[in-house]
Structures are given as structure tokens and as C-alpha cells.
């Protein structure tokens, strides 16, 4: 590969090597041929698509995005009606995808961590239960799991009139979950403002005071200070708001359904629960492997130095385990997001479902497909980008 200095030594390499055996020529020629083939293939495919579109009288433009969608969407956090445009319908779908993904990631992390730690418990029974949970979920298809939750549990909940009532009040029935939800009033503004300021201040105080402590060794009570800020500021906001910052929007039974509150459809909950339990089983294995990757000597050394067990976990074990845990954890998050597309099997209107409905109603499969895939790709790429930044950061501290 490195015979690139033919003229420097006296031997006349250049004239003796025929060009078809010259590695530099081969390399360039191979690449040119491949590039031409790839472009040719792309051209062939695109011309076929254009031909097919002309024959069937389909349009290949994206101007249909402004036309009115004409189909209803079951649940939407934006005001939606069928007269809105396709673009708007896609936006609703993206928001629904992000909603189920973000909430799912949050709960899957909590459940996965609990199960992963339970797997390492010294209690034999707890460890076995965790193992059973993991093996159950890892060995059945997610689609079957989702259908089991949807058909077996959430569809079979009692009728609206016989709802389960949980404290809150939260009503649970065939039509989903009805949550009591805070409603904004004029008094909410100062409260929200002060709370946000409080959170920001607390974070700043934590970072600054902690750095002072790390550099000087003085005890700055950074934890205590942050907590005090976190309590005091919302309290001031609460006082200004007169003790009642939000109005509780309680769901009320009227006729055959509940009015008010925040409604989560059975499709959403089934999808969420299925994704959370399935992903949690994989996260549990990631967490277990991460904790086990920290050598036992670290634990013993920390004990020998005399650290408290909470400090051992927080200052010695976790920082090292996280380095192993985070990359596969993020890929599980991405899996969860991609798996949310299985919603088409139970009818939760996320982006894939909206895309399929559009294809059924208005055709334009190619454009819809491009839009939907672009959404998933950008979610993936943004997450990978953040992961790469993180990986670079932790590699700096690697010894």
C-alpha cells in the first residue's frame, strides 16, 4: 500500500509497473467505478419511480402537505380537526411519538434500574424474580406483549360508570385514564416564574459551591443550600399566588364519558406499559452488567478508606459503572423510540400511524414514507450526536 516513492530510489519502478497493477490507479479506478454504479442505480430507481408515477397518474411533489388531511386523529395535544393540513397532522404524529417515547424512556429507566439492582440482590428470591421478569420479556416478541397488554388488560377494564378510582382522583376505565390536571389561572404566572428561577438558582448554586468545595476543600454545604433554594422560591411564589397557584381540573362523569381533566387513551397506556416493561428488561441487563463491571477491589478500597456506603455507591461505584452503562442505555432509548412505531397495531396515532392513514386516504406512498423515515432518522441522529459528545467527554477522564 505504501509503494508511493518510485522516483526517489534509482530503480525505475515507474516504467516497469503497468498502470493496471499500480495500486494508486486501482484504488481510484475502483472508487470511480463504484460511484458510477451507485449513481447509476439511484438514477435507474428514480426514473422507475417517475415512470410508475406517470403511468398511474400519481404526483411526486410535496405540495399535498398543505392540503387538508380529512381524517380525524384520536388523540392530540394540539387542537386538531380534519380540516387541518397534512403537515399539521404529521406534526401531531411527531408530538405523539415524542410524548410516548419520552415518558416511556423515563419510566423504563426507573423500572430497569430497579430490576437490574434487584438482579444483584443478596436475597435469592428477589434476584430470581428479577431474572424471571427479564427472561420473560426478552424472549417474547414486543408485538405480542403489546397486544397482550392491550387486548388482555386495557380493553377489559370496567365500563365508564364502574371506573376504578385512585387517589388524585384518577379514574381508570375502558376509555383510558382520566387524570386530575392543573389548569393555569392568572395566579399561576408568579408561581411558575419563581419555581423556574428557584430550580435554575439551585442548579447554579450546586455547581458553583461544589466546585469551590472540590478546589478548596472547605465544606460549602452545597446539597443543603440547593435544597433550601428549591423550597424557598416556590414557597414565595405560592404566597404571592395566594396559596392556590393552579385550579384543579377534575374529570367529571357526564353522560357516558368523563369531561375535563387530562385523558390518556387505552391505546397510549397499553403502548406505554408494553414499551416500558419490554425495554426495562433490556435496561436491567445493561445496569447489571455496568455495576458488575466495576471491580470488587474498588468497593473494598472505598470501604478501607472509610467512606459511608452511600458515598461508596455515589462517588466510587456509580461514576465508573455509568461509563459502561450510558452507551448501551442510549441505544435502548433509541430502540424504544423506534419500537413506538408498533402503535399501528393498536391504533395510537403516532407518526407512523398518521403516515399509514395518509397513504390509505391520499396515496403518495413515496413522499409520506420519506417524511416518516426522516422523522425517525433525525431523532436517531440527534441522539447519536449527543451520545458521541458524551462519549468523547468520558474518554477524556479515562485512564
Amino acid at each position, binding site marked *: 500500500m505504501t509503494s508511493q516513492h518510485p522516483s526517489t530510489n534509482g530503480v525505475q519502478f515507474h516504467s516497469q509497473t503497468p498502470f493496471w497493477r499500480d495500486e494508486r490507479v486501482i484504488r481510484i479506478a475502483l472508487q470511480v467505478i*463504484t460511484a458510477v454504479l451507485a449513481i447509476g442505480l439511484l438514477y435507474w430507481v428514480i426514473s422507475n419511480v417517475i415512470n*410508475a*408515477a406517470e403511468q398511474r397518474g400519481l404526483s411526486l411533489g410535496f405540495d399535498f402537505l398543505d392540503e387538508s388531511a380529512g381524517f380525524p386523529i384520536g388523540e392530540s395535544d394540539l387542537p386538531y380537526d380534519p380540516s387541518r393540513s397534512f403537515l399539521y397532522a404529521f406534526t401531531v404524529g411527531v408530538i405523539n411519538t415524542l410524548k410516548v417515547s419520552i415518558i416511556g424512556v423515563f419510566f423504563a429507566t426507573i423500572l430497569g434500574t430497579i430490576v437490574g439492582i434487584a438482579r444483584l440482590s443478596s436475597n435469592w*428470591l428477589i434476584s430470581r424474580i428479577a431474572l424471571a421478569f427479564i427472561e420473560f420479556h426478552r424472549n*417474547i416478541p414486543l*408485538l*405480542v406483549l403489546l397486544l397482550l397488554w392491550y387486548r388482555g388488560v386495557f380493553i377489559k377494564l370496567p365500563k365508564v360508570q364502574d371506573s376504578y378510582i385512585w387517589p388524585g382522583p384518577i379514574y381508570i376505565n375502558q376509555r383510558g385514564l382520566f387524570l386530575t390536571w392543573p389548569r393555569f389561572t392568572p395566579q399561576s404566572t408568579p408561581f411558575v416564574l419563581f419555581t423556574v428561577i428557584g430550580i435554575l438558582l439551585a442548579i447554579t448554586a450546586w455547581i458553583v459551591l461544589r466546585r469551590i468545595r472540590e478546589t478548596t476543600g472547605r465544606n460549602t454545604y452545597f446539597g443543603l443550600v440547593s435544597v433550601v433554594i428549591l423550597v424557598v422560591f416556590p414557597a414565595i411564589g405560592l404566597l404571592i399566588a395566594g396559596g392556590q397557584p393552579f385550579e384543579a381540573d377534575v374529570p367529571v362523569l357526564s353522560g357516558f364519558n368523563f369531561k375535563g381533566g387530562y385523558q390518556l387513551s387505552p391505546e397510549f397506556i397499553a403502548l406505554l406499559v408494553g414499551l416500558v416493561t419490554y425495554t426495562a428488561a433490556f435496561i436491567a441487563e445493561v445496569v447489571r452488567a455496568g455495576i458488575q463491571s466495576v471491580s470488587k477491589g474498588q468497593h473494598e478500597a472505598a470501604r478501607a478508606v472509610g467512606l459511608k456506603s452511600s458515598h461508596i455507591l455515589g462517588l466510587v461505584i456509580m461514576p465508573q459503572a455509568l461509563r459502561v452503562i450510558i452507551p448501551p442505555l442510549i441505544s435502548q432509548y433509541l430502540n424504544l423510540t423506534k419500537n413506538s412505531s408498533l402503535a399501528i397495531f393498536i391504533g395510537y396515532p403516532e407518526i*407512523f400511524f398518521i403516515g399509514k392513514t395518509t397513504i390509505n386516504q391520499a396515496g403518495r406512498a413515496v413522499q409520506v*414514507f420519506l417524511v416518516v423515515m426522516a422523522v425517525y432518522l433525525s431523532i436517531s441522529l440527534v441522539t447519536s450526536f449527543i451520545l458521541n459528545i458524551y462519549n468523547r467527554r468520558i474518554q477524556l477522564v479515562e485512564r
Partner: protein
Amino acid sequence: MTTAIQSKGKSKPPEPPGLLTWIRKNLFNNWYNSILTIVSIILIAFVLFSLFRWIFFVADWRPVTTAPLLYLVGQYPRDQLWRIGLILIIMSLLFGASWRKWGGVMRTFSLTYAVFLIFVALWPSPQGGLPLPIRGFMLANLAVILLGYRIGGIKKLRGMYLALAWLLSLAANLILLRGADAFDILDIVSTTLWGGLLVTLLLAVGGITLSFPIGVLLALGRQSTLPVFRWICTIIIEVVRGVPLIGLLFLSSLIVPLFLPPEIRIDRLMRALLGMIIFSAAYTAENVRGGLAAVPTGQIEAAKALGHNGFQITSFIVLPQALRAVIPPIVGQFISLFKDTTLASGVAILELLSVGRSIIQSTPEFIGLQMEVLGFIALIFWVFSYMMSNASQQIEVALGVGER
């Protein structure tokens, strides 16, 4: 955990291990573990009791028991079932021979296969959904496995021949299933009639075997020093891994026909298989890339010093070492592909799950018995996947991954 070590004046001799000691050490070693143990026992008892009650008293298993053949082969013509029987015999011989020849993992695979045969033979089907000859045939295949086991003992049968036989059997099985114009006795059976476990296994096995070479090429391309290769392969891998499988299945079933000129028509099942292959190839490529990275550069430099060219280095030095390291993740990927075949029901492929659902939809008296069918299908997937993941752990031990 380690609080027990305290130096006292005299140390007691270790207690003899007994059941009570074990219980005290593992279940009641401190107060919160005792509480956890008691709560878990109550929870387990409750779950087991409800499950037991549901399975034996509440559930109505008719949708599962009445139509075993639908679950196994779908609408495959009943007078052509002998072809599938022939495939089973080939498989039995190969499994038996490989068990003897290679042992270890193949033993687990063969046993899984045998369990499957026994399971089909004993399928509780009161309405005579599964004729007695078929059950007998399934049991007779156990004897064929033993025959294969004997054949595997023949000294002249080298491992290479057996591997070749496996590859050939894949093609032979496809021809047997589909039929061919060249043979009078093999009528063409349209793939729209294929269904059930047959299609599930076809998608999984076909997906993994056909995607493997593509995945290896993609991985090599991504490692290449030629920028054009590297870029094309990286884009393909990242795009495919960035989108969900169901998206690729829609692509291959709805849009690929538009990509091709009208003269070329691909069968619906083959289009779904194409989606599986593209998906699986990208993940195989990433697994293989991990294996390639594990090959020490010294190996490549030594090969160069000996005067091997790039092709020889890759195929005789790098790949054999890289592929050995990636067998466990490939088996893991096969398991997930096997589970993912259920998604093909979204593009109107009659695999196991959609057969189950269509049985319910087509029979009015079965409506509302979704749980039984779903539970049954979950069980099938669970048993297969669990046995395979155990096999992959055996491979890991046998190959000594991480010890070389």
C-alpha cells in the same frame, strides 16, 4: 454483604451447609430482606394461583387446539404436505449428524428441534384437527434424528461436507416448498398459501442467512480505506439502523415495486423477506465491525510482511478471527429477528401471529378469546428464544470469547 468478617478471639468452624442455613443466608439475612422475602412469596403465590386458575378453569383453548395445521403451515395444500414431511426428514438427518459431529450447541439445537417434534405430536386437538399419521410421522422423525446421529459418527464425513449439506438443504427446501416447473411431481404452490410457523421460520432463517454475507461486506466496506466505499456503506448502515423495522417492511412491500420497472414483479412474501434482510444486514454489519476491531493489527502487518495481498489478508487472516468473535451477538440477533418476524403481519404476511388472529376473526364463537391465542404464541416464541439464548451462552463458553 461483607459485614460478616469480624475478628473475634476464636473463630467458629463453618456451619455444615444445610437447607435451613441456606434459607437463613439467602432469604432472611437481615430485617429488610426478610420483609422482601415474605412480600415476594405472597406475590409469587398470588401470580401463580391466578395463572393456574386462568389456564385450567377460565381460558377456552379451542382457538388453539382446533386448527394445529393452520398454525404450522397455514393454507399449504393438504395433499402436498408430504413435501414438508420430506423437509422435516432432511432436517432430522442434518440435526442428528451435526449433534454427533459438533456436539455442544448443535446438541441444544437438536434437542429444541426434538422438543418441537414431540410437542406437535402431542398437540391436544380433540376435534381431530391433526390426523394420527401426522402425529406418528413426527414421532418417527425422532428415530430419523437417531439415524442421523449414527451417520454423524462416520469418520469419512468431514465437518466441511456437513456444513455444505446444510447450505444445500436450504436451497433444496425452498424448491421443495415452492415447487418448480422442471419437475412434474412438484406443482408450484403459491406463497400466498404459505403460513404459520413455516413462514415465521422462513423469514427468520432466510433473513439471517441471506443477510450475513451482505452484512460482512458492509462491515468490510465501512472499514475500508477507500472513501467512496466507506461513505456508501456508512450511509446504508446508519440509515437502516435509524428507522424501525416496520418502516423497512412497508418500504419493501409498498414502495420497492415502484422502484422496479413494471416487468419485474417480486412476490409479497419475498418482498417482506427483502425488508428483513436489509434490516438484519445493517445490524450484522455493526456486529461484524466489532469483531473486525478485535483482530490485532499485528496480524494484518504480519500477513503483509509475508507478502499476502489485500484479498488474501481479509479472507484468510482477518475474517476467520473476526467472525469467531461475533458468533454470540449474531445468535442474539437471530433471536431478535425471529421475534421480529411478527411485524410482518403488518404487511399482510400470514405468519404465526396473524394466523392466530385470523382464526379468531374468522370464527364468530372465538371472538374475545384473544388472550388464549396470544398467550399460546407468546409461549412458542418464549421456548424457542430461550433455548437459543442458552445455546448462545454455550457458544460463548466454548469459543472462550474474551480469553484469547
